[in-house]
């Protein structure tokens, strides 16, 4: 609750103080919880607990036990403060643009503008801000890296990546599996994305596709949802009622209880997320609508998280209310695709253009996601690297996974600083490959829905109800999907997407 309240108004000193007080106490509460987990797990009745709640619970507890010790409390608290400092710094940005005062989220709207010069101006403003704040952004991250490396060392891990995998509850795959997955993306997805970028360049009629062109796929600009906020909510309500499967009544409950905060405003933190209040069995969705198609994507995405959390609210233990992150993103990203037949409600005649763009950008996201992941593995394998080394590494990885990218006169990202706009790298280390793993699963849900919508929805709802009672690969296989970490999975997904897009 205090975290949400801070994100709703980052300028409020009282809310910030409450969050800081929470950040001081949270490790101590965590310590008490882990102490009892260790006691139960290693005691004579561990098998009894596994038989009642499932063996996965003890595996999750083992991750928690291994990833915390009172010896790292000071580093955990200091790391949280630095994460909050990053959030506050980015949220404090103000841009005067085309007669408006905008924050980063609001400026983001213009990166999709049909006029190339407007896109370039918006991108220049954004990245100039990162250039001006580079020293502070470097300082925050450098301190975080050292604090995280210290935690890993104190807990006996070889490096922070090993600790992060434990913290993320990854019980059924390791960094070698992820390395293989990145290699499969490079082999099967990057060439397809290079073709998509070339098609995009031709469609835009430009000599060279620049970074500020990447969000726009034809000269008409991107489709945008029509209507006021209230009209969009009316359409959302009608959409979920039509989809049924419990989605309609769930959305009405979220609306009537005001568990939605969706519009951008002054002082509100950027981004979108879903959190929950497990005592009350209710989720909360936070977003920053800015008038672009992203509003619909973020909205359906976060409602997917919320619906899963609500569907599994009666699980026998709190550890199963949310799955691990990569599994949780399957619920959110899949709902983005499962709502496709209703996109006429938001985009009218542009709905098919939206659907094609959504799938196209989902594919394009995969190489970017693995770039973020490969970067983080390198950063924590090399914790004594300098800020300059990190910029060089990002440049190298961009050239490998995103070979079409041209930053032109945008000095900071051209120098390798693009990653500093990716908040996960500061606030949620190693939580990013999860989106790509889930995206591959979501594209499989799309393929299933194209064949048999009713069966796909049944599988989706059943998966939501399972919450986090099993590890990632068990969950996705139980829904009839192929694990993205399995050999051959990406070839199948790429073939389906290529066929849909006619590439």
């Amino acid at each position: 609750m205090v975290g949400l309240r801070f994100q709703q108004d980052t300028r409020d000193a009282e809310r910030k103080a409450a969050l800081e007080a929470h950040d001081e106490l949270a490790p101590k509460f965590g310590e008490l919880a882990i102490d009892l987990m260790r006691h139960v797990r290693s005691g004579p009745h561990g098998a009894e607990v596994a038989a009642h709640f499932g063996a996965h619970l003890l595996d999750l507890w083992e991750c928690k036990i291994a990833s915390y010790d009172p010896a790292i409390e000071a580093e955990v608290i200091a790391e949280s403060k630095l994460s909050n400092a990053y959030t506050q710094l980015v949220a404090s940005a103000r841009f005067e643009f085309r007669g408006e005062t905008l924050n980063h989220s609001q400026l983001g709207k213009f990166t999709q503008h049909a006029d190339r010069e407007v896109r370039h101006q918006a991108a220049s403003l954004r990245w100039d801000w990162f250039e001006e704040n580079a020293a502070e952004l470097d300082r925050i991250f450098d301190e975080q890296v050292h604090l995280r490396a210290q935690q890993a060392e104190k807990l006996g891990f070889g490096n922070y990546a090993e600790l992060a995998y434990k913290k993320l509850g990854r019980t059924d795959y390791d960094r070698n599996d992820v390395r293989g997955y990145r290699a499969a993306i490079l082999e099967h997805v990057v060439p397809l994305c290079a073709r998509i970028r070339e098609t995009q360049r031709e469609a835009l009629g430009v000599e060279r596709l620049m970074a500020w062109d990447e969000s726009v796929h034809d000269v008409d600009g991107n489709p945008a949802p029509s209507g006021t906020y209230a009209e969009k909510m009316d359409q959302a309500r009608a959409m979920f009622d039509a989809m049924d499967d419990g989605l309609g009544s769930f959305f009405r409950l979220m609306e009537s209880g005001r568990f939605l905060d969706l519009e951008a405003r002054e002082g509100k933190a950027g981004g979108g997320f879903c959190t929950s209040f497990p005592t009350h069995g209710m989720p909360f969705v936070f977003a920053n609508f800015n008038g672009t198609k992203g509003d619909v994507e973020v909205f359906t995405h976060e409602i997917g998280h919320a619906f899963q959390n609500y569907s599994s609210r009666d699980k026998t233990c709190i550890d199963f209310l949310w799955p691990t992150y990569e599994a949780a993103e399957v619920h959110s990203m899949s709902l983005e695709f499962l709502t496709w037949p209703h996109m006429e409600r938001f985009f009218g005649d542009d709905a098919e253009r939206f659907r094609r763009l959504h799938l196209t950008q989902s594919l394009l996201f995969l190489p970017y996601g693995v770039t973020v992941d490969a970067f983080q593995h390198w950063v924590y394998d090399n914790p004594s690297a300098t800020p300059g080394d990190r910029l060089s590494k990002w440049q190298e990885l961009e050239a490998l996974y995103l070979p079409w990218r041209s930053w032109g006169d945008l000095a900071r990202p051209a120098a390798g600083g693009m990653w500093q706009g990716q908040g996960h790298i500061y606030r949620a280390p190693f939580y990013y490959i999860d989106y790509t793993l889930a995206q591959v699963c979501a594209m499989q849900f799309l393929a299933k829905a194209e064949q048999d919508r009713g069966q796909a929805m049944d599988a989706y709802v059943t998966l939501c109800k399972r919450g986090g009672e099993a590890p990632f690969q068990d969950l996705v296989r139980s829904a009839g999907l192929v694990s993205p970490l399995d050999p051959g999975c990406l070839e199948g997904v790429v073939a389906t997407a290529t066929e849909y897009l006619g590439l």
Partner: protein
Amino acid sequence: MPDIAFARIPTPTPTLEAVRGRYEELRAAYDGADDAGARLEALRSWDALRR
């Protein structure tokens, strides 16, 4: 459908002392339980505390 509103959810203000005290009670209940049912009941109460 439950009648629930975000505005009615209080901001929790747990103190370390109160949480630690409750935790120690539940750990003692778990250790002192005579059978599996009582142990699971202690774990369920602990789960409620964590929520």
